């Protein structure tokens, strides 16, 4: 009995399955984000923060995803280095720019929210600084991969770096406890959430929608990467065949 990850080791099977699933994921993400935005517009303003609280509905899901995507890259890297799963590197490579984009979104929305709330765009709070470091780490992953010509070597070295960089995730998670301006965890905590239900529901719907958006983009990027590798292999094959024929003709 094959598990799902084992059967997906065959890229052709992954392409077939993802071609069927992708339209559904994309449609679901559009629908859930639309519902979420509707809920956001009807959500009551916060009694202290007023309407600026609505930045939260983009900011918090983006920040969650920035860490989730890094964890996904780390798991994929582990899958590449330990199990040599053929799709693991495709997944890690496709996720890195998406993770960088969500981290950037979290930073920018955070700065826009920080200006009215804290009086400055950037306050060097531990959480801001550690998320900025996460952003640099994403850039490092992309830069390291693009600077090595040999693709198999680039894959393994990038995977090593992403596993080393995983130390930053607990730093981000616990950075709110070091006299930070950010509030401590208010949704995912033991006991009831400390956020009011009228704000919690739109937030959860937006988080689900943006996670679906990431899933759709990730699957699409993985398909593109598989196809790019096939085209490259076919080109190399064609060049070899042409070279072989030329050699025969010369001989």
């Amino acid at each position, binding site marked *: 009995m094959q598990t799902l990850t084992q059967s997906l080791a065959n890229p052709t099977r992954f392409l077939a399955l993802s071609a069927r699933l992708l339209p559904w994921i994309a449609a679901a993400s559009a629908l859930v984000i639309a519902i979420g935005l509707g809920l956001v517009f009807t959500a009551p303003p916060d009694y202290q923060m007023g309407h600026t609280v609505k930045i939260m509905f983009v900011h918090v899901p983006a920040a969650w995803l920035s860490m989730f995507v890094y964890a996904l890259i780390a798991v994929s890297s582990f899958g590449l280095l330990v199990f040599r799963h053929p799709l693991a590197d495709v997944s890690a490579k496709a996720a890195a720019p998406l993770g960088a984009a969500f981290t950037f979104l979290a930073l920018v929305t955070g700065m826009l929210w920080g200006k009215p709330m804290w009086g400055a765009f950037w306050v060097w709070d531990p959480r801001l600084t550690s998320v900025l470091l996460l952003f640099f780490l994403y850039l490092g992953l992309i*830069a390291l991969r693009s*600077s090595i010509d040999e693709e198999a070597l680039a894959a393994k070295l990038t995977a*090593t770096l992403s596993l080393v960089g995983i130390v930053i995730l607990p730093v981000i998670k616990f950075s709110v406890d070091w006299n930070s301006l950010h509030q401590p965890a208010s949704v995912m905590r033991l006991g009831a959430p400390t956020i009011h239900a009228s704000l919690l529901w739109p937030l959860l719907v937006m988080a689900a929608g943006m996670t679906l958006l990431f899933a759709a983009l990730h699957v699409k990027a993985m398909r593109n990467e598989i196809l790019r590798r096939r085209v490259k292999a076919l080109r190399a094959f064609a060049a070899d065949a042409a070279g072989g024929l030329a050699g025969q003709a010369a001989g």
Partner: protein
Amino acid sequence: MSALMRPFWQLVRRDVSLAWKDGGAIGVALGFYLMVVTLLPLGIGPDLALLTRIAPGVLWVALLLAALLSLARMFETDLEDGSLEVLATGPLPLVAIAAAKSLAHWITTGLPLTVLAPVLGLLLNLPPEGYGVLVASMLAGTPAVSFVGAVGAALTLRTRRGGLLLALLMLPLFVPTLIFGIDTVREAILNSAAFWPAFLILSAISLTALVLAPIAAAAALRFQLQQ
């Protein structure tokens, strides 16, 4: 175990004496450190109270930049002349080779920079109670720089623009060392007994790097040698 210790120390001695006889690397790192610390007050102006406040930060940041200069060369020359492959086929496992070369880098870079730091502290009007803690914090923190830096050096061994890429990869990973190193000195200047928490965290970071970083560096070296 002792069968491995001998080649380990021989490798450390070889790297230290190569760096010492070559002479260039140590001198360049020290000169760079001196230059950065000299240029900064020129930019800010000779406000002694301000310089006292920023002295721990300037000394630590400049030390990191100076140490980065020689990181890229840690494995490069050995890869170019083939001695890295000879070492890899020898009795030492790659983890020990990575650890020995990191240790040699610390002896030839971290240690001289640490010795120079209190002299540069004079230029920045560092208060007298800061000097002992400054040297202690650098002795505790610079091993993390060399050992974590070895991972970056191994990762960027065959890349184009290796040096710049190395800085991009390593600076995020150096930030915890930097923060707690500066914090130790700053706390010591404000209140002589309050530097212990930051100093202990700094030591913990260094000890963790000492154990874990050679494993990652060895993995990266293995992938490089398989090519």
